[in-house]
């Protein structure tokens, strides 16, 4: 028994190492890997991005694969570590990713992203009144207040910035801290239920919730629309021309910009994005976000 032991061990080691070497030989072909910050339900994300992958693949004649990521910082890290080639980022995460990966290129944004807004909402039972100017935000002092995800531009960064402009510190909310619901939908549900008295979220989500009836005007109401700022955008790695051929980045950009509602799959994609078309985006549109991000400690 004892003398047989080493032979056992040896055969196991051989088995193991042969397996690993067989795995190592299967090398992947060059695929364009796209990703997105997860701001919608997975069923919708999967539907949207598999359509988008097919469409891009058809136009660019290369294999395109969608890789799901569940949280905002993970999407940024995946971009930094070259795990994703083209990502649909929010304003803040896009800037974070670009700063961590010099050479990355801002390609496009939706028509609605040029003048994007957040909305502040309140539970109707909270007694919080309509806010007509920035300074009136001070009526939120001492209330139970929630943001969305920590890294969200429209659900956290910009609302926190406007609160700060109005002279309110986040430690002045009830419980000495704001909540972080994790998503726009959750913010809406938590304010509507009354667990939080007020909250801030993406205007696009708010409008669609009103339309579909998920937001009940009897229980939750809009108290303030923020001024406009630039938000979501497509960010591509800087090495795509090297990997897929000269001028590839530009072809990719043009493909996105050419989509319209005349073609059926393109119309579905744009509808799922809540946009009529994609338009060119420039780095300097996000300068304000970068400044605010640094001011609030979200960018180092």
């Amino acid at each position, binding site marked *: *028994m*004892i003398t047989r032991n080493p032979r*056992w061990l040896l055969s*196991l080691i051989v*088995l*193991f190492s042969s*397996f690993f070497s067989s*795995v190592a*030989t*299967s*090398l*992947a072909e060059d695929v364009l890997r796209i990703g997105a910050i*997860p701001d919608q*339900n*997975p*069923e*919708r994300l*999967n539907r949207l991005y598999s359509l988008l992958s097919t469409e891009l693949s058809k136009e660019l004649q290369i294999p395109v694969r969608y*890789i*799901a*990521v*569940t*949280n*905002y*910082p*993970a999407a940024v*890290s*995946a971009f*930094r*570590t*070259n*795990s994703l080639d083209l990502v649909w980022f929010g304003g803040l995460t896009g800037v*974070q990713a670009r700063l961590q990966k010099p050479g990355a290129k801002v390609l496009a944004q939706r028509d609605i992203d040029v003048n994007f807004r957040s909305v502040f909402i309140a*539970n109707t039972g909270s007694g919080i009144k309509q806010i007509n100017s920035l300074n009136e935000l001070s009526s939120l002092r001492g209330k*139970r207040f929630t943001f969305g*995800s*920590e890294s969200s531009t429209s659900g956290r960064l910009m609302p926190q910035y406007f609160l700060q402009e109005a002279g309110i510190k986040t430690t002045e909310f009830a*419980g*000495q*801290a*704001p*909540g*972080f*619901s*994790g*998503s726009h*939908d*959750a913010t809406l*549900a*938590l304010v*509507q*239920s*009354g*667990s*939080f008295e007020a909250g801030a979220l993406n205007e696009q989500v708010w409008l669609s919730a009103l339309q579909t009836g998920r937001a009940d005007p009897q*229980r939750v109401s809009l108290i303030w629309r923020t001024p406009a700022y630039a938000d979501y955008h497509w960010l591509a790695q800087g090495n795509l021309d090297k990997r897929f051929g000269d001028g590839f980045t530009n072809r990719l950009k043009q493909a996105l910009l050419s989509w319209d509602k005349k073609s059926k799959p393109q119309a579905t994609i744009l509808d799922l994005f809540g946009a009529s078309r994609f338009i060119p985006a420039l780095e300097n549109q996000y300068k304000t976000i970068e400044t605010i991000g640094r001011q609030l*400690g*979200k*960018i*180092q």
Partner: protein
Amino acid sequence: MIRLRLNPTPPLLSLLPALALVVVLMEMVPGIHSGGLQSLIAFISAAFHPSMDPSVVSSAWRGLQITMATALLSWVVSTLIGVVLGLASATLIWQTFIGKSWPAILFRRLLAFPRAVHELLWGLLLLQMLGLSPWVAILAITIPYSALVARVLSDQLDSLGARPLIALRQSGARPIQALTTAIVPPMAPVLMSYCGYRLECALRGATLLGVFGLGGLGTDLQLTLQSLQFEQLWTALWMLAAVMVILEQLISWWRQRLRSSGAAPKELLVSVCLMLILGICSSIWLQSLDLDMASSIRWHQLPLPTVSELITAINELPWLQLIFNTLLLTVLAAGIAIGLPPLGMMLWPSQLGRSIQSLLWGFLRLIPTPLAALLLLLNCEPNLAVAALALGAHNLGVMGRLLKEALDQQSDSCYQALKASGAGDRVAWLYGSLSAQSPSYLAYAAYRADVMLRETAVVGMVGGAGLGWQLIESLSSFNWAQVYLLIGVYAMLTMFGEVLSDHCRQLWTGSKKKPVMALALQS
């Protein structure tokens, strides 16, 4: 001179932590409101008609396979590495071979760190180094689990005592022969039974990693919950439930078989081979799910902060408050998780009561903590108590199952005797059944409290004030100085907790040796 030491009665001690529930409820009840009732009803009714949309089902099915394959592979690798490291950190082994014990102590100290960092934190760090790769989740589970298996194995080995070994050595056996003869027969059943439990833990761990964005079913759970798509959420939950039930049944069948057959060394070899085959199959499985296991391993430098950034970070954060809140959260959650299962079983000892409680525990084990937190938060105002209850609930499910399993294994003669002498159901259960199990139950509890301290990172966002929340915030700001400091503080707290729980166990059970069943809770 005779010295008497006063020992508290164990059965009451295991009920006492339930007092935490009183504190939590006092804090929570004034904030409960009916505003979330609609959502709660929608959540419950969705359980009866989960989404059958083919794209939802196929996405959840794929997620489930990734989670299962990840759990299996990391379980195999961590067990094998853990056994090697366990041998390396056992004093007994070094004593036998070189006659010194310092290398064992060195190994033990070194392994304290990987163990003290939660698999979730390993996952987030590894993501920075490896990018999106299936190895992130596998390694994130493997690193702490190997260190855990190593600790448990070395503790068990050292508690075996050196006498049989000395006898064998003196009769002329070579070290390796002596070790094999003296160690394998008593260790095999313990180790095999413990490893079964580790598989359950690995499944829970893999699911949780998914919740935090590392792929698999957890991803579906988290995204559907965040967008409040309860019907889609239940599609994923039911699938997870099915796998959990099958796995739990398989493992208890396996343990029963071990008890009846006594686990010969030959069976140990068979199970090692079985594990290796499982490991290989699960890697092929992952590969077939389109997760490229080989090409995605590229090393990226972990961002390192400078000294001045570290100093700024030390001054920036309110450390004392963060630590205090984290500890308070742990104590409350641990109280709920430890005290409620025995209390529930005592208050409702009938067959029906037991069945209902078992079902409830199963449900609580099923729901990952962040999901429990959001569901609770929809129905009451946010505070630390909500976070404590969410954290406690999941662990309550685990504690309940272990208590029930331990009780089912012991004979009910004491209970019957007390009943026959006229005691009521509850008293008979308390002194006849629970009493015998309480020392080991409390020992498990001490381990579990340790686990909960590490898991406070998971409910960070509800508490809004502890180390866990701060860590998520620092990570999302990519403030590496703060991230490293926070992980360091977490690790220190866990190590401190380990020392404390060791002392508690010695005080309650009066022995240094860990009860075999208790090992299961070191997840």
